[in-house]
């Protein structure tokens, strides 16, 4: 897939690919500082490494920054079978990706689905973890009020309705990004929206987007309920330093989620609240995110 010049100007990173379990995974790998932990930036739905384009240049003078696109997202392969897209498969691919890069000390930066994927990795590989920056996400089985509601969340991904809304209409990119970002003028600027649209040009390229909402457990017995219960139980055992940064105007993951992380994690700062920030906090507060990452990098330096 060719990245057009006007998008390339704001996402000026070299594309790299790695074959992982039969899937071609796209990632960027910037900065060369090997003496410090590597910062690995995990996106959510419906985004890709493009989400971190304003953060990567703010941190690579001090550390190496890696940002992968999950299969189904960004420039990575996009399996056609919706059943492939499980939290388990995403976590397995990400784990092998980290192992194959040979990363021994990692600072994970997570938001939205980056949370369950990143925490899933961290609880199995605490020895590789140097820290985590946690933003607008969750890591427990109990759904947020938003996720439990029919209007609009469950309706928009209901059978056939979801296929129409997500696959044909691409609503998360065309409308969801706009509704969940405070800095809407920036988003409306051609290159930014075109960057988000780029990897999702056809219904078949959007299957991963539809599968993520269907991976959110709502009650015991649902797909991923046990997996996320295991995550929640393991959070108090994670000893590495964590920093919380939260968009206060997020109606998907409200500020109580930040408090819950703080209560569960033993080595965690008080949440840094971003009053103007919505769900896509990377668009609303890139400078603040970079500050939090660099604070952890400096900590890991000692």
């Amino acid at each position, binding site marked *: 897939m060719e990245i057009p010049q006007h998008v390339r100007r704001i996402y000026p990173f070299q594309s790299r690919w790695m074959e992982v379990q039969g899937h071609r995974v796209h990632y960027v790998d910037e900065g060369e500082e090997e003496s410090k932990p590597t910062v690995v930036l995990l996106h959510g739905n419906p985004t890709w490494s493009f989400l971190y384009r304003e953060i990567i240049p703010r941190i690579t003078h001090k550390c190496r920054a890696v940002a992968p696109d999950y299969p189904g997202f960004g420039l990575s392969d996009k399996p056609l079978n*919706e059943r492939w897209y499980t939290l388990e498969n995403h976590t397995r691919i990400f784990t092998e990706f980290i192992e194959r890069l040979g990363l021994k000390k990692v600072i994970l930066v997570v938001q939205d689905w980056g949370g369950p994927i990143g925490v899933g990795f961290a609880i199995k590989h605490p020895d590789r973890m140097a820290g985590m920056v946690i933003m607008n996400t969750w890591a427990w089985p109990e759904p947020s009020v938003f996720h439990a509601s029919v209007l609009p969340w469950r309706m928009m991904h209901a059978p*056939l309705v*979801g*296929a*129409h809304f997500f*696959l044909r*209409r691409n*609503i998360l990119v065309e409308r*969801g990004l706009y*509704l969940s970002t405070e800095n809407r003028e920036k988003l409306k600027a051609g290159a930014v929206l075109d960057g988000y649209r780029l990897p999702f040009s056809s219904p078949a390229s959007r299957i991963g987007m539809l599968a993520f909402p269907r991976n959110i457990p709502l009650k015991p017995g649902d797909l991923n309920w046990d997996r996320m219960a295991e995550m929640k139980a393991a959070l108090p055992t994670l000893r590495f330093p964590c920093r919380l940064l939260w968009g206060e105007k997020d109606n998907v993951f409200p500020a109580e989620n930040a408090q819950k992380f703080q209560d569960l994690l033993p080595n965690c700062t008080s949440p840094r609240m971003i009053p103007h920030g919505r769900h896509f906090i990377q668009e609303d507060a890139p400078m603040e995110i970079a500050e939090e990452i660099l604070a952890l990098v400096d900590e890991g330096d000692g």
Partner: protein
Amino acid sequence: MAVQWISKQEAEKVGPREERVLLEQTPGHYPEFEDFLGKELEKKGGRLFFRGVSGAVYSVGWLPEGDPDELRGIEVTIRTATGSSMPSMETIDLDLWPFLEWLIEGTGGEWTLKALRQTGAIYRVPGAPERA
């Protein structure tokens, strides 16, 4: 606007060409949807046919076995005459809206037309009211 159901014979008059416009791979994600649609399909011999507001003709049914990508689920296809052009995406989306309303009404329970219309309005889906 209600869905305008038509017979298989009427649908076949349009022409032989069928193209998939919607694919639902997990109709049982909320089982009540699959229950409702499965029963409706069984009543009609496995395939439903309707005419959209544009006049285009559609067919709904289980994906045939032996799909080249080994996919399963329920598909909606559009039927067109050989050599004729496909309606625009916007036209097809407008045609699909009454079908979605029928599906939600039939599934019932917590799935209400009001919720569908409001969700459609929030995300500006063609056919939904302009305001939530």
